[in-house]
Structure formats: C-alpha cells, structure tokens
C-alpha cells in the first residue's frame, strides 16, 4: 500500500511537471504545422511567466496575471510573425532573438520594478491559481485504488492543468476534423497549393501563431502563478526546447505529444525522487548528474526511438509567390 501511494505521488508530480511542456508543445504544433519554425517557445514562455507573476503581484489577481501572460506571449508571437511571414526573415534567427530578448528583458524589467535581483515578490493564494477539488473527491477517496486515483491524481490540480489536458483532444479535433485544421496542415506542407485554391497563406499563418502565443502564455502563467509562486531568473530552464524535441518525437501530432510530455514529466519526477538516494555499488550520485537525467534520457529516447519523423514540408521556408 505504501508503494502504491508512492506511485500515485510520483505520477501526480509527473502531471504537474508535464503541463508547461505540454502547453508549449501544442503551441509549437500549431506554429510548425503552419510552416513556421518556433524555436522561440522558450522565450515566449519566459516572457509570459514574468508578466503573469508581475501583474499578479501588483494587482493581486491571478486572472489579470494570466491575461498579461497571454498578451505578452502573443505580442512576442506577432514579432515572430512579422519577421518571418511579412519580412520573410530567417525563422530560426527570429526565434533565437526572442529567446534572448525574453531572458534579458525579464530580469532587467523585474529588477528595476521590484528590486529583488530579477525575481518577483511571492504571491499570496489569491494571486495564484489554486487547486480545484473535483466533485465527490473526498467521498470517493475512501474507495481503494479507483477512488484514491481520483482523489489524489485526477482531482486537486489548478485550472491550467485541466485546460492543458483538454487542449490535446481539442487540438486533435481541430486539426483533423475542421476546415481550419485542413488548411493549417496544408499550409505547412504546400503553401502554394493553398494560395492557388484562393486562401491567404499569410492570414492562416498569423492565426496559427496567435494560437501558439496563447498556449505559451498559459504555459508561462502556469510556471509562475500555478506551479510556483513567483518569477525567478530563467525559470523556464530549457522547457521550451524540450517541448520542441517532444514535438518532433510526437511527429507533430497532438496525442503522441501528450504521451511524450508525460514521459518527460515522469522522468523529471523520478529525478526529484532519486536525489540523495544511495545506489547499490555506486553510492550517492552527485545531484547535478541526477538533475541532468531527464534531459539525457529525453535526448536518448528521442534519438533512439524516434523512427522516421518527417517535418511539415514547408516548415522554415518563407512563402514567396513564384515567378
């Protein structure tokens, strides 16, 4: 029984750790399906995390924080859109620039605003997204296994977690069952085909990047006002890049993206568990090595088990009318 509740606890933290990566991964999915490389996920998430924490700290409202996060992240997405769609610039460069911009600007603005070395003040409960108890969680908690899973694993997360998991089937439905999804998939494969069919490539790509911006905003807000209680320097810590790797592993498909992100969540949770544990023969492993474990394993898994993962054909290429 002790082992069972251990597993539940670990899975519970896996879910919490997977959420920001999942949201960023879906953001990347919309963007890259439309043919725009989105290496700036990291930067958008970081910018959003700061905006959410700062506004929530000032106003005391998690919701206003979330709005600010979405606003900042979408704004950054629009910079990327102008650079890569209208100006036909290099999408990698534009994305990298956004990452650096976010890394520097958050600390700079944060320090001159709150004078805490780039961090924001700790948020009170009202300024955060607090756990939601699902109906009957307490009553059902007594039932062994099923009830415990419901109470401890499924119930008791904050709103953004549920939104993230809901976003997966919604994305799958949008992508494969709607007109917008058909066009989105087409524009990333062969934008000329879409243009000759009389549909604006520019408009469609803007729409995709806006959706990506909103999802990154949610991911950032989750980091600083859901999972955490303040913003700290570089708090995304490469999650945007892991999300990008997960996107490739998932072959740009929403449901596999969910599993990939959960896998990373499990690895991260295991990492936390393994810190300070004495291993037979090896002894205690330095904490840095353990912390690196999920990243190393992700790379190994991605490189080793990925199989053939073909990116949308037009990804990274600015669309220019022929002649």
């Amino acid at each position, binding site marked *: 029984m002790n082992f069972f509740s251990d597993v539940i606890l670990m899975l519970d933290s896996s879910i919490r750790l997977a959420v920001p990566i999942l949201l960023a991964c879906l953001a990347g999915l919309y963007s890259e399906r439309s043919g725009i490389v989105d290496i700036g996920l990291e930067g958008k998430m970081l910018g959003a995390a700061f905006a959410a924490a700062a506004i929530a700290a000032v106003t005391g409202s998690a919701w206003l924080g979330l709005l600010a996060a979405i606003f900042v992240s979408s704004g950054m997405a629009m910079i990327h859109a102008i650079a890569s769609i209208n100006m036909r610039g290099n999408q990698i460069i534009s994305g990298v620039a956004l990452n650096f911009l976010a890394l520097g600007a958050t600390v700079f603005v944060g320090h001159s605003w709150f004078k805490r070395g780039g961090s924001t003040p700790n948020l009170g409960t009202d300024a955060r997204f607090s756990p939601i108890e699902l109906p009957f969680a307490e009553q059902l908690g007594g039932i062994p296994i099923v009830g415990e899973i419901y109470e401890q694993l499924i119930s008791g997360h904050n709103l953004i977690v549920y939104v993230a998991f809901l976003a997966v089937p919604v994305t799958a439905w949008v992508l*494969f*069952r*709607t*007109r*917008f*999804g*058909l*066009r989105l*998939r*087409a524009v990333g*494969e*062969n934008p*000329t*085909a*879409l*243009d*000759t*069919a*009389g*549909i604006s490539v520019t408009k469609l790509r803007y729409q995709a990047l806006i959706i990506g911006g909103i999802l990154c905003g949610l991911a950032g807000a989750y980091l600083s006002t859901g999972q955490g209680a303040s913003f700290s320097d570089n708090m995304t810590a490469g999650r945007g890049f892991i999300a990008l790797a997960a996107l490739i592993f998932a072959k740009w498909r929403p449901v596999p993206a969910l599993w990939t992100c959960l896998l990373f969540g499990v690895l991260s949770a295991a990492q936390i568990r393994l810190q300070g544990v004495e291993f037979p023969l090896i002894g205690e492993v330095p904490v840095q090595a353990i912390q690196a474990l999920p990243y190393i394993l992700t790379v190994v898994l991605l490189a080793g088990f990925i199989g053939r993962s073909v990116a949308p*054909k037009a990804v990274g290429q600015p669309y220019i*009318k022929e*002649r």
Partner: protein
Amino acid sequence: MIEKPEDIARQPQQAAGQKLEGQGAQGSELAIDLRGVSKAFGPVQANKNIFMSVKRNSIHGIVGENGAGKSTLMSILYGFYHADAGEIFVNGAKVQIKDSSHALELGIGMVHQHFMLVDNFTVLENIILGAEGGFLLAKSLKAARDEMERLAKDYGLEVDPDALVEDLSVGQQQRVEILKALYRGAEVLIMDEPTGVLTPTEADHLFKIFEQLRAQGKTIILITHKLREIMAITDSVSVMRRGEIVTTLETSKTSPDNLAELMVGRRVEMDAQKTRGNPAKKVLEVKNLSMTDELGVPRVKNVSFDVRAGEIVGIAGVAGNGQSQLLEVISGMDEPLLGEIWINGSRVEFEGSRTAAHVRHLGLAHVPEDRLKTGLVAQFEEWENSILGYSEEPKYGPGQILSLRAAREEADRRIEKFDIRPPNCRLKTANFSGGNQQKIVLAREMDRELDILVVGQPTRGVDIGAIEFIHKQIVAMRDAGKAVLLVSVELDEIRALSDRVLVMFDGKIVTELSPDASEREFGLSMAGVDPHEDADTDTSGANPDLKEGAQ
C-alpha cells in the same frame, strides 16, 4: 448542374448542347476573350498587347518557346497576377479577376505544370481544400466523395479517393488536379504543359479525358511546346513569341512545320540534316549487364551492346523501361548486379562513389537526364557549375586552391562557344532558362578531351531554338570521331540523330532498328515485340496506335 449524373452519362452530347444554349443566352459564344492584355515584370515585358479569344466547348492550344509568356498569360487569367493593361471578358462579361478564388468563382480552373497538391493528404482532402463549404469537414468529405464518383463516371477520371497523393503516379496526381478544378465548378480548364511529366500512355489517356470534357461542354486551354499535341487534340491554336501572340489559327489549317516556324520566327530544321556516321573502333562495350534498384526490382536485364567511335547510338523506348538505370550504371552513378562495362579497352571497376570519376578518367563524359537533380547546383553561379566535378584539374589552380580567374575565363569562353544566354558567368544558375541550363551542362561535359559522350534526354524542357543548337553539337561530336550514346524518350529526336537505334522494353533491348525504320516497327518494338521476329503477328496494342495517331 440540375440533371442527375446518370442522365449526363447516357446523353453526353445532349447535355453539352443544353449547356451551350443556356450559356448562349448570356450573350457570347466566347468563353474567354482577352483584349490588349499586357504585363511587365520590372524591365521584362512578359505579355504585350495580347488579343485572344477562346470559343466555348473547344480545345484551344497555346504554343511558344520557353519564356514566350504563355504561363504568365494564363496566370493572369487565373488571377495569380494582375494585368498592367487590357480587358478580360469571361462569357461575354467584362471582369476584373482579383485572385485565384475569384477566377474559380468565374468558372476558370487551372492545372499547373507543377502540381499544387499536398502530398501527405488523401485525394479527397486535396479536392475539398479551399472549398470545404463549412467549418466541419465530415459533410464536405461526404459530398466530395459522391461528386468524385460522378466525375469518374462522366469523364473517366478514376482515382481512389482515400489514397495518399504521394502514393499516386504522376498521371493520377494530374487527374486529382483536374478533379479539383471540376469540383469547384470549372467550365474553362487551363492545362499548363500537362504532358511534360507523363509517359506516352498516360498522355494518351489524358487526351481521351480532354475529349470527354469537351464533349460535355467544357472548354480547355492547353499550353504546350509540343507541336504534336497541338495537332492531335486542339481545335484552334495561338502561337506566342516573345510575349506577343503571333497568330491564331484553326488547327486543321496548319502543319507542325508551319507552327514551328511561327514559334521561332524562322525556319527550323526538324531533322539535324546529318550525313551518315563513320563507325570505327569500339569505344564502349556493355556486356550482359543487369541491375536492380534499391527495392530489389530488376531494372536492366542482361543488356549487351557496343558503341563505336564516329557513330551515334540511340536508345529509344517509353519512359521507365530501364533506360535511366542503364545510363546511371554506364556513367558510374550506380552499380550493376552482373555484367561488365569496358571503355577504351579497360574494364570499369565499380568502387562506390569514386566510380563516376574513374569512368571520366577513362574518357567518358556524361550529360545526366535531369539537369537540376544531378547535373547542376541551381544555387551556384554559372562558372561554379562550369567546373563542377572537374575542379581538381590542375588548370583550375594548384591543389585545393581554386584559381577563380582561370575558372571564370574558361566559363566565359564556354558561354560564347555554346551561346549561353545571358552571357554572364556570375549569374546564379537558377536564373537561366531551362535551355541555357542544359547548355551549361553540355558545355561542361563536351568541351574537353573525351572519347565517348553519354547523353540522357538532351532536350527535355528545352525550347526549339536551343534544341536545334544542341542537336548540332551532338552531331558535331560524332563527326569529330567521338562515340555518342543518346538516350531519349522523344522518338523524333532519336530518329533524327542516331545512326543505329536500340529499343528498350522492360529492361531488355528488344531489337536494333535503323533510324529510317517505319512507325509500325518502332511502335511494335517499343511495346516489347521484336518486329523482325513477329513480322506477321498483328499486335496493334495501345502504343503503336498512339504513335501513329499522334503524328
């Protein structure tokens, strides 16, 4: 379309007639009427004061050399570009075509030379793309499936609606493009170089589809530079030259020679007017050669032949019968399964990627079939392509260091010798026309010491002026005492140039023919029947019919 599909299928002529009447009421028998259309791209005048009318329910051809402005004109009609001046009338009504979706609303559909399909979509998804008719796909997919069944029945446009486009043959992909246009209600169908990528059998099928479309009241505008197609299928033809319409004729009142002359503005020698070759010693010997492709499918089956100095040996055949693979093995790009190749009395050693260089050292020069895939780096400047593969020769500088001056001087010399236009060796190769790109490859391979020239599809996608020039160069090589192996799917070209013709079918050499052999003999052997052996067997298959019908 109010009639039920079955009615149309049963009485196509009547349906077409009703359609004509209905539209005649709108006031014009002209589906398309262009009046004074002009378009310039910067300093280049792509279309100059174009007047052209296309009758409804007809097949109208537009011929012209590469760069004559055919595709630009049609892109204007399809709303891809906007004309600088002039008026466009569709069904007698003046229109300003804003964009492609507006053209589609007006009933104008276009099948581009390079297909506008999403490769990893199913046929159905491609057909509804842009005409989904609602936010959810399920309903429109259902509607498109029904419509496809009807169109397949009416026009012989059979394609599996659930197949992925990337799994379809080129001919089938083209059918998807036509279906796409018809699904959007196209009454006028613009076909841009539709047979460029098709095998003769597929082209034949396409022409049958055109006839069915015409029988049901559709109008087709066919852009091509193949005169044979114009003669075979069109009702009327407009000739374009340097952005202008030279003339519009009834097809029945003209001839290929006449059209060719109008296209280039001077008399073209359709035959290279060569003397007989003077075969001397064997330069290339191919002995019992077999090869399989990467999937293990046998492509070349026990082929033996030789090529002597001072002769041109042509390899004819319908595309895809092993000619490409044979070329690749001879030029050292691929390895044989069995058999030997001897050049100048030395046996070719196959040792992976070094073979191509080894073969060149033995005196073989190779002009590959697909210049953009294997012959050139499109992003290179002209002079860089001019030394591609030969950059290690000492005349281009010592060791790893390139002498840019030497390389560019030589490039300039070749530009002059081969009349490559524009004459600028610093221009990016992608900016040259197809014919001039081909000349860049030819110049590189031919302008050196060599004993045998192996040429694949020397004039594919090349305009008539350049064809003539290239043919003369090949004959000149032969007359200088070199051996030439020519592979082409253009039978006219093979017959005009070769001293001997080998016909390939299904990886084997069926027979050897004289270039003066009859149409029937070529037709039979290209269908795999040796006319010498089965002289009295009457196998009038699809291929001989096609050849004769197309003349």
